[in-house]
């Protein structure tokens, strides 16, 4: 494959993976979540796709791996290699701007945008946009979420943890 051809193939796979939903928060794709680390046409002529877990114990990791495999197979990339990458570790900073917008529209407060000083930032209610919110618990219904309540509209909501 020429460099131009392999780049086209890589772009096609990125578009393909952008349609694979996260099993826990299906409004997000695995690309929105930032867990697809690379798509590369390697010298061995095969496509290498790197994915990284969000949390070490996240039960969705196996489901994501098999959904990614199925999407690659269905698109004819049966010989593509799916690789699990641990380093550098995933951070919520890798959730894309599109992903953040989708989270908020879905009713989950997105993680703060930048790595530094994020625990001090106020969390905005995804329902009424008030900054007057209170953390109920550091943990929620999935490993990636914490539990908040809005003091303005009184609605409880999930926050995507900053890590």
């Amino acid at each position, binding site marked *: 494959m020429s460099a131009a051809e392999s780049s086209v193939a890589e772009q096609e796979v990125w578009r393909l993976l952008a349609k694979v939903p996260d099993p826990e928060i299906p409004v997000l794709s695995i690309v929105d979540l930032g867990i697809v680390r690379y798509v590369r046409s390697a010298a061995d002529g095969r496509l290498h796709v790197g994915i990284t*877990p969000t*949390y*070490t*114990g*996240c*039960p969705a990791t196996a489901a994501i791996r098999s959904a990614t495999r199925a999407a690659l197979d269905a698109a004819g990339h049966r010989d593509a290699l799916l690789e699990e990458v*641990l*380093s*550098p*570790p*995933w*951070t919520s900073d890798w959730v894309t701007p599109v992903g953040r917008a989708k989270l908020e529209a879905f009713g989950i407060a997105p993680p703060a945008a930048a790595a530094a000083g994020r*625990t001090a930032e106020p969390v905005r209610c995804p329902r009424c946009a008030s900054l007057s919110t209170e953390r*109920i*618990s*550091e*943990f*929620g*219904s999935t*490993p990636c979420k914490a*539990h908040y309540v809005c003091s303005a509209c009184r609605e409880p909501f999930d926050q995507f*943890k900053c*890590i």
Partner: protein
Amino acid sequence: MSAASATPARRDRAQNDALFRYVLRLADTSLVLGQRLGEWIGHAPALEEDLGLANLALDLIGQARLLLSYAAEIEGKGRDEDALAFLRDAPEFLNLTLAEQPNGDFAHTVVRQWLIDAWQIEVYEGLAGSSDTRLAAIAAKALKETRYHYRFSSGWLVRLGDGTAESRARAQQAVDSLWRFTAELFTADEIDERMAAAGIAPQLAAAAERFGRRVAEDLSQATLVRPAQQPYPWHGKRGVHTEHLGHLLGEMQHLQRTYPGVRW
């Protein structure tokens, strides 16, 4: 084989065995603590804490899986993470004695968690710069989760300690009863020294100082008193455990022991 050529090979085997045991200590501490926390599911004082403790357990078991898989590869005897978790007996477990202590009341669980979180932060920070790239990657990943766990456990320590008379008394009682197990956390033995010399693991003396400062600050914020150090006869990381580990393993390993090789 000549004696000259056998010596380096023997040394490599000894180094490999030390690394295996070192990784098992980390893995078993996470696994055993994760199993303990899992006992709270459905029993915690409030739904939020039930979810919180379950989430801590999930992260710890995730870390244990990565570490056990690596330990199995280092050992190279065909065992995998499941064989190591479910088919070893108590004397082969190398977790810190503190991790296997019973849940007690919520204050005991919080204090145990806080001490191990603070220990893991020091160890994982050191390991993130390890000459062993696999351990470095696992530690960097686990460190993010551990810092988050510490937010939970140190936050609760302060709320309980600086809370009502009842919660303060219970938190102090938990600190008093668990403190004796902390000496083991930073007492280096020949495996720790060998790993530190190879640039694989951090020097425990420096880590112990930082741990001591952190713990003292948290205790003072929680208005709790740091007990005097007591002598301790337990050496969980050498496989010498309190009676509690056997009972924990009896429950954790029951299914695999009763129906060997059973699958979902």
